[in-house]
């Protein structure tokens, strides 16, 4: 399993050897994008740069996450499959994919199956799998947005990420999903923030309430000290605020 290939290549060049490395970059089938009306399928080897060209208002969060990923050159090499299976550090694409309720198709010794992207890390942690594609349900009246706060604007791991997805019905948000990443090992949904937005119109007040809910209720890594936890919560709330501002601009 070669996940996070750009990291593994660096490791290989430094170490010089490995028992077995299978380079799957030649599997062209895994680079295809099927951009359907009901669902969008992304081959696992779709590069992050290719995601920037995805159409559809509902997929905006993915485009935005891709645009802020690594740097211009890393985006051309890094793949969506590699990023969501990467077990160390913050996989920034996981946050919007979770918000969009995406599933990953994986090949295991027992055959093919779909798992929620939020469960991916758990699966790859214990058994070798090959991610073949990511499937994202589509909804033409939905909107999404993503924001990332990092220590610099390129080539930096995120301090916190936030993605929000919502259907729009006469300016009212429904089926809201809020996902926050970076503050602990895996991204997480924040139901308290979703409640603040569900059935409401997006304005300064609802934005602030949802951001506060993120700041108050997001679960941070228990190993962080009190001060670091407070900082992560504050940054997560700021990321949420920015994501909602972006959502407001597209809604």
């Amino acid at each position, binding site marked *: 399993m070669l996940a996070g290939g750009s990291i593994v290549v660096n490791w290989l060049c430094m170490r010089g050897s490995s028992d077995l490395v299978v380079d799957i970059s030649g599997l062209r089938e895994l680079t295809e994008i099927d951009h359907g009306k009901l669902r969008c399928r992304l081959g696992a080897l779709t590069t992050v740069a290719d995601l920037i060209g995805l159409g559809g208002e509902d997929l905006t969060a993915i485009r935005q996450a891709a645009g802020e990923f690594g740097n211009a050159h890393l985006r051309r090499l890094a793949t969506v499959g590699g990023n969501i299976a990467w077990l160390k550090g913050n996989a920034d694409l996981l946050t919007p994919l979770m918000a969009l309720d995406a599933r990953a198709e994986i090949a295991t010794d027992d055959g093919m199956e779909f798992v929620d992207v939020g469960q991916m890390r758990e699966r790859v942690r214990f058994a070798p799998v090959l991610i073949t594609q990511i499937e994202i349900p589509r909804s033409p009246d939905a909107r999404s947005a993503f924001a990332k706060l990092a220590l610099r604007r390129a080539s930096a791991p995120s301090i916190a990420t936030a993605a929000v997805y919502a259907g729009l019905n006469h300016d009212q948000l429904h089926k809201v999903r809020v996902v926050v990443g970076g503050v602990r090992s895996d991204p997480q949904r924040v139901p308290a923030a979703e409640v603040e937005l569900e059935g409401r119109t997006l304005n300064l007040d609802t934005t602030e309430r949802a951001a506060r809910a993120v700041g108050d209720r997001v679960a941070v890594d228990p190993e962080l000290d009190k001060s670091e936890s407070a900082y992560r919560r504050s940054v997560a709330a*700021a990321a949420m605020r920015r994501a909602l501002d972006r959502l407001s601009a597209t809604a």
Partner: protein
Amino acid sequence: MTVDHLSSPVRLHVNDEVRTAPATPSTSLQELLHDGMGYQEVRQGCGEGVCGACLVIMDGTPVASCLVPAHRADGSAVLTANGLDRLPGHSASRHADLLDHLLFRGAFQCAYCGPGMLVSAAHLLANDTNVDAACVREALSGNLCRCTGYHAIIDAIVATAQGEPCRSKWSRHDLAGKLDGTLAFPTDRIGESAQRGDELVAAVVFADHPSARLRSIDVDAARSVPGVIAVLTHRDLPARNIGGVDVLAADQPILVSEHVRTSSNAVALVAATTRGALLQALDAIHIDYDVLRPVTAMEDSVLDKVRVYDGKSNIIAQFSNRVGRVKMAFEEADTIVEVTFRCGAAEHVCLEPDGGSARWEGDVLVLRLPTQSPYEARLVAARAAGLPEKRVRIEAPRAGGSFGRHLIGGFETHLAVLAMHTGRNVRLINDRRSALVHGAKRHAFVGRYRLALRQQTITALEADLLADAGPYVGVTPTIVSLLAVEAAGAYDIPNQKVVARGVRTNNPIPAPMRGYGSLQCNFGIERLIDLAATRLSVDPIELRRRHLKSERKDGFQRTVPGSPRWLDKTLDRASLRLGDPAPGPAGWRSGRGVAVIHAKYGYPFGMVDRVVAEVVVDETGAFCVRSDVSDSGTGVAFMAGQRVAEHLGLPVTPAYEFASELTGDASGTLIGKGTPPGPIKRRIFRVVENFSTRRMGSVLVFLAPLSPSVYATLLKWSAPFINLAYRGVSALKSMLFPFARDTAIPTVSGSRSLLLLGNAALAAADAFRARALEVAERVSGLPRDDLILTADGVAGRRDPLLRLEWSELARQVGGRLAAVGSASNPRGRLLDPKTGNQTGPTDFMDGTHVCDVAVNPQTGKVRVLKYVAVHDVGHIFDREIIDGQIRGGIVMGVGQAVGEVLQLKDGCVETDSLLKLMVPTSLDALYNVDIELLESGTGLGPSGAKGIGEAAAVAAPIALASAISNALQAPICAIPLSYRDLFDMHHGGATTPKKDLCDG
């Protein structure tokens, strides 16, 4: 079995040429192109896709070739920076325009990043029809530049896109060669051995702990790996186990034998025929340690209770500055401000990794190194190899950044012993992780300050300053001496008691960084004045203005008439240009900051500091300027050529060449007289050198642990004798060796090189003019007064038909017409006999930076709203180079204030990747910088020019810290800071960002 048995050929179309070379599964495309196929423009940088130095276009797409396995590229079409005129959509003429715009603007300095930048730029220009600054910044987001701050690069790309004509000026042939790979960097492969592939590859095994006792080193398994030629430990060294810097003390081992004292220590060296074998051998080495508790805090070290080095005192350097009646001033003060300031260790981040090569030319060992101290490198390398110095030659090619990092060496001894042990040519490159974790860092600093004021006037300064020396003496005493002299910064403070000390710790080995201690002490005094202004509720700019130094002193502490300091002018102009406060975003906290800096660029008065330069024309008529000052990326070498071109009226700037024979003969006899020195003169020279540097230095190190009052008294009493001794040395040297260099002094030391190399080049040009006329007089038979120099050679003043071209003149004297000139420090005393204080550096860079910033209280993020930099540069020779130095310094300095935090824990560096060290990218750099240059004409360089290289990097972090402090209304007492520190400062409501950062 190593990975080498899996090697198979990879076929590429590189720049329309079919190339095939072997690669293993672990070979990266960068390694294949650079090492396997000789494309030097594909540079090794970070190995993780952050810096972009290795960028190429593969099948139409720019890729970081360090992250592409070579075999994945098999059959691909690759364009390197040298093949971009073949890129579809990017014509050859447009590429030529791009190069012209970049070179005209002096967009690069070291230019190690240049080829990668070119690839990004060409791809953007070929694929985007609406190129503006924003999209260029985005396109360059994976290309790091550490020198010029991106601005000129982006400007040049936009100008190319918009079809702007390029105003041609000086031909930057030095930059052109760096961009196309024809000028090799130290880590490039050169020579027949490298081309044949029989050069060994080598690596260093560094210590895993900062303090430990070695129990055992098992290298048997490593030695049995096929292809491994040598695995060396301290037992295998051919000569004495002394490495590191040996200017003032010889206390650093090449390889650790018993005690590990820092994670910078090397434990073993490995050389192998292939990289696969090398890496497998490194894996097979097993080292057992008894781990000891490290001493990492300077305040603990100075107590001298737990000693770091064999029971010797931890205090390895002490200098003081005592003026007036400090005690009385404090007794009479109505306000006393007392604070402790800190500057953390910092990483230089030279884009080129640490490394070089050793090759045998007959029985001479030639070392190619990125060194700023070639004489020192030669001395320690020869000693390590057990060779006489005459059998070691140093080549110091253009380095991919230095910023002071290469003032101290290290791996020259590793290369020397490996080459000696194996008898083979060896290439050694420490990868990025090694450079970050084990490489040298800027001296960490802590200063306890007290400032006395009476009726809003500063009356006294008391400061106790500590610099972190790591475990060895190194060059720390020279830093400490300057801390003492510069503690009061830009201000005239009548009563001062400053004690500066260097202390041993188990932290990484330090190296000076851009300013040689100026950042540390200017940070202290500037922040102190800000705090005093806050305490007194007075305008910090006004408080500064009242106390600024206004006069320049010579080496005898006399005011130099007609040579005022323009510190006040820089402050006034900067304040005026900044105007009204800029509004920040809603909810952000805004503040204004100021930094007036007074940072040295000359060496201290009294030191025998001389630079020698030679102007040469050969029989093809090509000019060249030669010296032992290596080009560490500052542009100073090009500047020397420019001055010669101007002086002699040449149409083309001469090339610059590193003069290896000078490092082979520091007495200057060879270059001055054309014959090497005899054994007696060589012996005399060595004795004089040894006395004036090593012996004198070792005495100072020996006395450093004395109590400050005793030490100061001793220095005061001995000042006349020390001055006399130095004057004697200087006179003796000048008499016996008119072109002698001081081997203890780095040949390249920031902006000092401008002062001395510039003046030496002008002196050489004068001598050349005289020599050319002398030859022409002999050839033409006309008296000298009837001859004049022209752009083409020598012509008759009254006879227009008489023309002797440069090539002809060179042929008349054996094919090489040359003349040598030199420049020295201004005369002066090392110590003031009345006080025992040092008289200080020969000159200073003066400038003021002011800025408005906004801080997001929820995230700690900082946005610079306005930034103004005003510098007195003495005289402007090349506005673009100066502009690049200032902008690059500001970008580096901003990172040094906030963001670029090097994490150290218990003496170990935890920031092991450029993904973790937040060097500003093109998206983070500061572009809204308003720069004004003043020309006082009072500098010691050519035409009154001053240094500028370090000034902005010193001022920027201080100005930013000042502004952030005002924005958050909390005193910033330490840099660098993280966003989280700022968040804590705001939300903690405390006056300190962290408990241990500010205890005043």
